[in-house]
């Protein structure tokens, strides 16, 4: 019976592995755990069949490789190394006689993870749709003015300070009551902490106009948490309208589909809030303007009516004048007739008077036995007009007598 030392065995295993797996190979698995130490990343990789783990291996990304991968993948790498992420990686199977089997990761294919996430996302979306949760938060009435705002964000998030500055120092001097509810915006704790804060806000005695969830830019994979069913469900059913700006330009997360209003960045959320207030105020001012105009109009109309009444009154006066004029006109026509009539009657009167005058005429007087005394052809009616020796004539009805005055006696 041949007996080997443990080292001999392990060395044998190492040789077999090195011989059969001389180069790095691509593996698909799930990240179960990930720890960083001095720039090296130590991962626990698993494969599950349902909830059952059917395979498990330890893996490492040496700091040198990590730096290379970070350069290549950018911020996505942190998201890729989160627990629960399906990952495709290229690893060399390393076996150490003392430390056993370890996968040394050389490359990561983010497309696979994204693809997996996309599949997950679709499944989540479908579930949300089936439960009628898509667009549910949209039905919550968004107040015309968002003034009391609960902000869920990480105090370390890049976008938070920008958001706060922009909102508080708006050019219109609008006042906003912002209360921050801190929660992780990346990493494993996002879902848990955001859910906690949502609960806290709802239980608060203070009424809010809306909830805002914001964070600055981040890797696409970092948004994974915002595609989780649990969080999406809570937000869809939330009592307050939820606004998000989680800093992504292209891809829509599920969160965007379940919230009331989704905006690209925290800055865009700030703008939205300020513009909404501005819109409200301008509407109020428009109404104020309308009321002012209409009031002025109404008063003008009233004045106009008074003016019209005045005019009607004037017209009435005019009518009186006109009728007077007509009367005058009529009179004008009538006057000649009247005059003619008057003339005729006057003529008659004249004839009457002539008749009477006729009775008083000299001839008739003389005929009745009176006579006239004349001196130098002129009628005289006083003794004072004659003196002794004057020649006078006496007119009778049938002739004249000349005589000389020889005695004058005054009536005493």
């Amino acid at each position, binding site marked *: 019976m041949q007996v080997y030392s443990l080292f001999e065995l392990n060395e044998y295993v190492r040789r077999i592995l090195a011989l059969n797996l001389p180069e790095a190979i691509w593996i698909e698995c799930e990240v179960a755990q990930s720890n960083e130490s001095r720039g090296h990343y130590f991962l626990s990789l698993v494969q599950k069949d349902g909830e059952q783990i059917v395979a498990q291996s330890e893996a490492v990304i040496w700091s040198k490789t990590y730096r290379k991968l970070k350069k290549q993948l950018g911020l996505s790498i942190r998201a890729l190394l989160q627990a629960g992420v399906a990952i495709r990686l290229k690893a060399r199977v390393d076996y150490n006689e003392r430390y056993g089997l370890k996968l040394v990761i050389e490359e990561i294919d983010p497309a696979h993870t994204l693809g997996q996430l996309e599949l997950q996302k679709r499944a989540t979306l479908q579930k949300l749709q089936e439960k009628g949760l898509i667009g549910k938060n949209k039905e919550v009435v968004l107040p015309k003015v968002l003034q009391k705002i609960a902000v869920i964000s990480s105090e370390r998030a890049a976008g938070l300070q920008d958001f706060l500055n922009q909102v508080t120092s708006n050019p219109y*001097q609008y006042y906003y009551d912002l209360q921050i509810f801190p929660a992780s915006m990346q990493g494993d704790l996002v879902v848990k902490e955001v859910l906690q804060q949502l609960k806290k806000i709802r239980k608060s005695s203070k009424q809010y106009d809306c909830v805002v969830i914001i964070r600055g830019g981040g890797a696409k994979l970092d948004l994974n948490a915002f595609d989780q069913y649990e969080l999406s469900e809570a937000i869809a059913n939330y009592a307050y309208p939820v606004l998000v700006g989680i800093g992504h330009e292209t891809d829509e997360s599920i969160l965007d589909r379940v919230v009331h209003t989704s905006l690209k960045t925290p800055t865009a959320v700030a703008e939205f809030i300020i513009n909404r207030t501005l819109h*409200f*105020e301008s509407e*109020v001012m428009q109404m104020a303007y309308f009321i002012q105009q*209409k009031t002025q109009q109404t008063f003008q109309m*009233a004045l106009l009516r008074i003016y019209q009444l005045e005019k009607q009154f004037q017209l009435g006066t005019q009518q009186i004048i006109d009728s007077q004029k007509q009367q005058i006109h009529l009179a004008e026509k009538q006057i000649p007739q009247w005059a003619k009539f008057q003339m005729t009657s006057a003529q008659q009167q004249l004839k009457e008077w002539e008749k009477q005058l006729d009775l008083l005429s000299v001839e008739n007087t003389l005929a009745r036995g009176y006579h006239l005394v004349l001196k130098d052809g002129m009628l005289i009616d006083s003794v004072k007009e004659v003196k002794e020796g004057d020649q006078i004539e006496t007119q009778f009805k049938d002739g004249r007598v000349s005589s000389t005055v020889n005695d004058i006696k005054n009536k005493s």
Partner: protein
Amino acid sequence: MNYEKAYQELQDIVQELQNGQIGIDDLSTKIKRAAELIQFCKEKLRNSETELQQLFDE
């Protein structure tokens, strides 16, 4: 009073004016009310609750 109520009341006044339902005698009462509502909105938009409280206490 809140924004929504103030807005609604203003809109009602606008509506009444539009329909010519306000007689000249009621007009000044309505205008006074409208001015109050507008004032309320403009002040609330720019002041915190505590400041507002002070404003209305005066």
